[in-house]
């Protein structure tokens, strides 16, 4: 008890000391703590935005653009890192010696070199090795578009853009169209979940599992096709002839985004590979043998016996790797990708001089993300915990 009182007093003293220093320093510099700068015009351009933005928009909107960009690259990297990591992790356990060693080399190389160096290396590949946009221009270009669709330039990759000609907002288009598509996808997801549950139930009652593959395929694609017709989907192609200096049309995925995305994927993929390998190895051999003794076929042993038990071990570290991706995406500032660290913590901070406010907001954003992901993880861990007695 005495120790706690001492600790409380020390903590209060330390906080008071820091606060008095802060107040004195701010007074000396003629500053105050105020978040009014968020409302004022940002005055800088951002080349990759998900929502409408121009240099007249407020600092707050710039921060939102940054947040969305952070979430975008984190989301993309989570998907590719998982695919890469699971693949490499499974292949590390392959009975093919060469593949096993190759994957070990991949994991060791990417785990032991700082991510910052990987980001810079991939960004350099993007900018120094890829041809300029000029190579794709004109009647008879040096290089053709890949399949007539994609152009890989040193500024980024150009891909066809879907546009909705008869949807909401007319030819200009509007975010509502995309919301509809997302809603359709979510509905399809729950639809397939329902179909699978129904198949499980029928199998439980009759012992025969109805084939769900084609039904699920239809649930995924039919709504999308209907929507495409209703909204008048058409594709905006990168056009070599529209402009003499740069490609026009399509979506430009900037080189910084691609560099960051790929670097985060391969770097984190190496860590995920180790988690996956450890998870599969954690399932004791007796489980596989018991399943075989019950007469379950080898392929179903993996999906019914090994994987469900391995996932229990794999998923918690996997989620913390997702957290790491989100946190490491803050290195975007090194290649000039406009994530929240680069907008709010970089340009806005430097232009307004509001260091304390900007850094606090930045930390608050990352804290909210981290804490909400950990909350999800705790719920998952509790639901997956081995129920003993």
């Amino acid at each position, binding site marked *: 008890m005495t*120790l706690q009182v001492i600790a409380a007093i020390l903590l209060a003293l330390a906080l008071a000391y820091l606060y008095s220093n802060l107040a004195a320093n701010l007074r000396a510099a003629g500053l105050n703590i105020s978040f009014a700068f968020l409302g004022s015009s940002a005055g800088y351009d951002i080349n990759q935005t998900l929502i409408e933005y121009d240099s007249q928009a407020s600092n707050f909107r710039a921060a939102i653009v940054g947040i969305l960009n952070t979430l975008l690259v984190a989301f993309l990297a989570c998907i590719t890192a998982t695919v890469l990591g699971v693949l490499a992790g499974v292949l590390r356990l392959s009975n093919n010696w060469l593949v096993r060693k190759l994957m070990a080399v991949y994991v060791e190389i990417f785990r*032991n070199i700082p991510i910052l*160096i990987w980001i*810079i*290396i991939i960004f350099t590949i993007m900018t120094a090795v890829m041809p300029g946009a000029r190579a794709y221009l004109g009647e008879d270009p040096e290089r053709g578009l890949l399949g007539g669709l994609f152009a890989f330039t040193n500024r980024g990759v150009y891909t066809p853009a879907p546009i909705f000609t008869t949807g909401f907002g007319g030819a200009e288009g509007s975010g509502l169209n995309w919301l509809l598509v997302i809603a359709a996808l979510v509905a399809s997801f729950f639809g397939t979940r329902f179909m699978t549950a129904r198949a499980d139930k029928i199998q439980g009652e009759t012992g025969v599992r109805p084939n769900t593959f084609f039904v699920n395929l239809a649930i995924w694609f039919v709504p999308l096709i209907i929507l495409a017709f209703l909204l008048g989907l058409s594709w905006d192609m990168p056009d070599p002839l529209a402009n003499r200096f740069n490609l026009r049309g399509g979506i430009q995925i900037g080189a910084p985004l691609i560099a960051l995305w790929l670097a985060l994927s391969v770097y984190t993929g190496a860590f995920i590979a180790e988690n996956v390998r450890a998870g599969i190895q954690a399932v004791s051999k007796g489980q596989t043998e018991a399943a075989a003794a019950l007469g379950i076929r080898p392929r179903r042993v993996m999906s019914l016996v090994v994987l469900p038990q391995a996932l229990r071990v794999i998923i918690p570290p996997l989620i913390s790797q997702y957290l790491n991706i989100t946190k490491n995406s803050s290195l975007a500032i090194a290649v000039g990708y406009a994530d929240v660290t680069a907008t709010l913590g970089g340009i806005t901070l430097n232009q307004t001089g509001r260091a304390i406010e900007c850094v606090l907001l930045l930390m608050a954003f990352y804290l909210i993300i981290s804490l909400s992901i950990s909350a999800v993880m705790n719920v998952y861990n509790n639901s997956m915990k081995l129920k003993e007695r």
Partner: protein
Amino acid sequence: MSDTHEHSVAFVRTTDIEQQPAPSNAAGPVKWMRDNLFATWPNALLTVASAYVIYLILTATLPWILGGLWNTSSLAECREVLQGKSAACFSVLTDRWNQLLFGFKYPSEFYWRPTLALVLMFFALAPVLFFDLPRKLLIMTLLYPFVAYWLIWGGTIWVPVFALLGFIAGYFVYARFVAQNFALGFFGGVAAAAVVWYVAGFVVSMLAPESPLLASVPSRDLGGFMLNMMLGLTCVSLSIPLGIALALGRQSSMPLIKWMCVVFIEFIRGVPLITLLFVASVMLAYFFPPDATVDLFLRVVIMITIFSAAYIAEVVRGGLAALPKGQYEAADSLGLDYAQAMRLIILPQALKISIPGIVNIAVGLFKDTTLVSVISMFDLVGMIRGPILASTDWNGVYWELLGFAAVLFFVVCYGISQYSQWLERRLATDHR
């Protein structure tokens, strides 16, 4: 028997057949290849595909590396010599070797000082890493920080000497009182050290000679890989004790202390290191007394240390939680107080479990020291991206420089992780 044979068998061998070697497809390299490379059709395809990938990588890189030039003075000269051939221009490494290692401001006549500090580091680390060595060598480890500080920063020798004296005084007070009460010994030791340092503050300014033995070098002149090593080593060694303290605090039964540690750990783990470095570079100055100027190196060390301490705390907490409850109860039933139980029973076992995790954090921390280049400190990556690639001589030599940085980090980090695996095997005292 022999009769029947005479009638039914035409020929009976009277000698043994000599032992034959196994058929070539059931032993030796052929068997190995059949088992490990071409077991099934898909497997064989996979083998061919990976062999092709390896071939592609080697044909792309090997001629480039082997044909590399080592002694030209600029990229333009390299291109002249190569005449359009594709080969590396490693001359940038030989030309800027010192800058890559020491940064571009460290006085060149003093390069021997950090080099000596690096050599001494191996002697200082040896007794910690390999505990078969005589324990008395630990004296060297304890002295090392002061020697290294003096070598790298220079200045009057009295600063490290008095810092050391403070620790010695603190230790003696601690040793005198710890038998009675751990808290008394600990806080007494801290107080004694503080008194010595306070007094030293006045004494040093009087004793400081006009021209010290080693000229003083300001910390903003540090750079290159030396800066990465210094940050890595300092922050790891500072964050391990801090992390253990935080982990114990989090396990504590006192709600206030537990709450403080939880908030601290979760806060630090929730934000990226780069925001903490922003705090160090733009915000921390506001929290120091108005007249104090704490240099950037120290501010960065503080932030990286608390960052990795939070992670180490979580690893150690895992180790503490993995110990069977019986160990805690056994310590209690022996009549040990909290400090004794922790020091003699709990921590030795918990730390042993946590070693792989702590080493992982240490490797991660060492890799993260490259982030200081973002707040414009010129570490290895900062040197490459800043002064070297921006110079007219070497503008455009990306692969050689980035490859060099990658190899340097790979060697150190891979070495550390191999050491940790060796240590794990060495410490495995359970019977399997």
